[in-house]
């Protein structure tokens, strides 16, 4: 029996090794002398046409585009293969929540610092990917300023204003607060069968992204979260979300969550970063009518996410990879993407200030002036939250705590928070 186990393990390991050796190190010269670069993003970032453009200018390079997995998969992949010094694509996407974690191992990345590109991005965006000794491990792609995406039809049915200017005003306009947001939520849920927002997780993420030092101190060490701002937010969101039933109780990105957008009456509001506009449209389907976007955000502007492209040091063709990453994050490409997507928020100064961006509208969101809205929302962001080496690990534990109450309904707020604290203690 033991031998069987062993042979199973042996066979599995052998198979894994064969597979691993089949997957390239991100670059391989082929028979005709061409080199192959791989670009890996979590989800399809729509790079295919721009990769073709770049290939046309570099006839000696073939580029393969991989779009598998979610952000957490991507992080696991990088943690694994950066350690092995092989197995990664030449251009790998990074997410801002765990950028600080990977910055500790900046020697595993090629230095992308380039004097010619110094002023391409907003300062805070490029600073996040720069180490203390000036090494740049990622080129910024986009940012994620948030607005309130809402269902105008459900608002109307519940007797709330449904026109996007009126909604923005009703939520408090430039002085919108979270108190007001939940107050309107209570008003809405009293008159509608639908929930107010889609998940506690979403609302929490929006709120915690407005805190400068949420989980860590300035030096990256972990904070004691008992009695912290994080605990206050945790309790606030859950009280409104579950006790007042303002949340639809879904896990973000789950099959239920995806399917809920096709329903007519699940929830009325998504606290949507610019990149989520595409998700809403994709999940609801092209023909779904009712969504709109209000140029407002509670608590003084918020930013969720935004990514980078990096070149792992293990890449055999760092020069070409760097050039490709620079091209994919150039203002021309990101602006073109924003135009195609009906609005967007590039992290490049030139793209964000382009006169082409402001007049954009998005037909799916009732022709909302998304160019103007996202630009205003980006300008409203006041806090750049610090995300150090422990941010993602702690965030995962807290979000699990939220979902125990919101989705699983297996614990009370107090029980769940107590478990968050004890889980955090056993984390390393």
């Amino acid at each position, binding site marked *: 029996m033991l031998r069987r186990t062993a042979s199973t393990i*042996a066979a599995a*390991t052998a198979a894994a090794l064969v597979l691993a050796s089949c997957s390239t190190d991100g670059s391989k010269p082929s028979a005709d002398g061409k080199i192959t670069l791989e670009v890996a993003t979590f989800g399809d970032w729509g790079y295919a046409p721009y990769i073709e453009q770049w290939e046309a200018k570099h006839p000696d390079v073939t580029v393969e585009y991989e779009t598998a997995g979610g952000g957490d998969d991507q992080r696991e992949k990088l943690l*694994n293969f950066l350690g092995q010094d092989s197995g990664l694509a030449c251009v790998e996407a990074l997410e801002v929540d765990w950028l600080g974690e990977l910055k*500790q191992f900046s020697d595993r990345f090629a230095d992308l610092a380039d004097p010619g590109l110094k002023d391409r991005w907003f300062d805070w965006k490029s600073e996040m990917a720069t180490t203390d000794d000036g090494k740049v491990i990622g080129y910024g792609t986009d940012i994620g300023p948030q607005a309130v995406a809402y269902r105008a039809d459900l608002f109307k049915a519940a007797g709330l204003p449904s026109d996007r200017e009126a909604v923005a005003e009703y939520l408090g306009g430039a002085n919108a607060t979270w108190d007001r947001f939940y107050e309107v939520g209570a008003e809405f849920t009293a008159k509608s069968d639908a929930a107010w927002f889609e998940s506690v997780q979403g609302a929490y993420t929006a709120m915690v992204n407005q805190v400068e030092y949420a989980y860590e101190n300035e030096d990256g060490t972990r904070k004691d979260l008992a009695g912290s701002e994080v605990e206050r937010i945790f309790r606030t969101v859950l009280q409104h979300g579950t006790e007042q039933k303002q949340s639809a109780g879904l896990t973000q990105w789950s*099959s239920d969550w*995806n399917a809920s957008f096709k329903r007519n009456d699940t929830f009325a509001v998504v606290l949507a970063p610019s990149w989520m506009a595409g998700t809403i449209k994709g999940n609801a389907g092209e023909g779904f009518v009712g969504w709109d976007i209000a140029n407002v955000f509670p608590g003084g502007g918020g930013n969720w996410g935004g990514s980078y492209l990096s070149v792992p040091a293990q890449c055999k063709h760092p020069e070409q990879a760097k050039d490709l990453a620079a091209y994919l994050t150039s203002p021309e490409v990101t602006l073109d993407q924003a135009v195609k997507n009906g609005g967007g928020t590039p992290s490049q100064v030139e793209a964000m200030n382009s006169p082409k961006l402001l007049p954009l509208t998005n037909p799916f969101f009732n022709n909302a002036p998304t160019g103007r809205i996202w630009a205003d929302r980006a300008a409203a962001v006041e806090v750049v939250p610090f995300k150090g080496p422990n941010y993602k690990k702690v965030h*995962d534990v807290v*979000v699990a705590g939220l979902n125990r109450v919101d989705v*699983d309904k297996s614990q009370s707020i107090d029980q769940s928070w107590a478990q968050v604290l004890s889980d955090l203690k056993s984390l390393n």
Partner: protein
Amino acid sequence: MPTRERRHPHRASKRRVTASGFDLRVSPYLYIAPFFILFFLFGLAPMFYTGWVALHEWHPIGGQGDFVGLANFTAVLGQGMFWKSVFNTLSIFVFTAAPQLIAAIFIAAVLDANLRAGTFWRMAVLLPYVAAPVAVAIIFSNLFGNQFGLVNNLLATVGLPQVQWTGSSIASHIAISTMVSFRWTGYNALILLAGMQAIPRDLYESASIDGANRVRRFFSVTIPMLRPTLIFVIITTTIGNLQIFDEARMFGGAGGNGPVGGADGQWKTITLYLWEVGWRQANLGRSAAIAWLLLLLIVLIGLINFLAVRRIASSENGGKR
């Protein structure tokens, strides 16, 4: 190879004797060598290296840190989540093994009857096994969606209350067991079928002559004669179930986002916990400790299996003679 001389070495030249003697003594080892070389390289060596890792602080990227002795083991054993994962693994095993085995025996018995197009049915039974486990898990995760899944829709049509599949341990274990059983029942049925076909047909004939009906023949001839095959199936199922990963990893999945094995670890199996500690919490040392504890658990259960099998085998002999 001249076989004549092999059979009569005394007639062969001295040189040949030595050569064939060498052949006889060494070649069996050469034949089995590939397995053992592979096993040492990919089985034993990684296993001991894992033990080495378990004694250190170890980051997936940063690599080896300080030597910490058995601290990783004590830390793991002291965590409620580890014991929860052990419970989950055993619970999923129980929910999977029993129904799966009964169904597999039943399917094998049906296939053993002289069906038309027998090969077709046998292939059909194996189809779920061919499907990639992750693909199966994605589809079943959709079926077992909490709010808009097909299973809950069906329950609602019949008037039963909806189940929060990702909410409680038991519900999630049932969902995962369904996926595992879906994949493995057919495979086990074929192995059992092979065992059934090896049963001498004259036993059935004499049983019929003695007046045993179909059901009686099944329980008094098929099942006892199937014992060795059954034992094999039970052991492989046990080991496979202790290592469940794909299905649990994908279940309740959020497209590569979100917690591993449930917000409260409702369906976090040992292998899943090992993965989470290693690559989510970036703590390979502790993860390696979990791997060793899992090995010990498998050895323990293997011993129990072995003893049980010996008992069954000896009582069988005693009963018959």
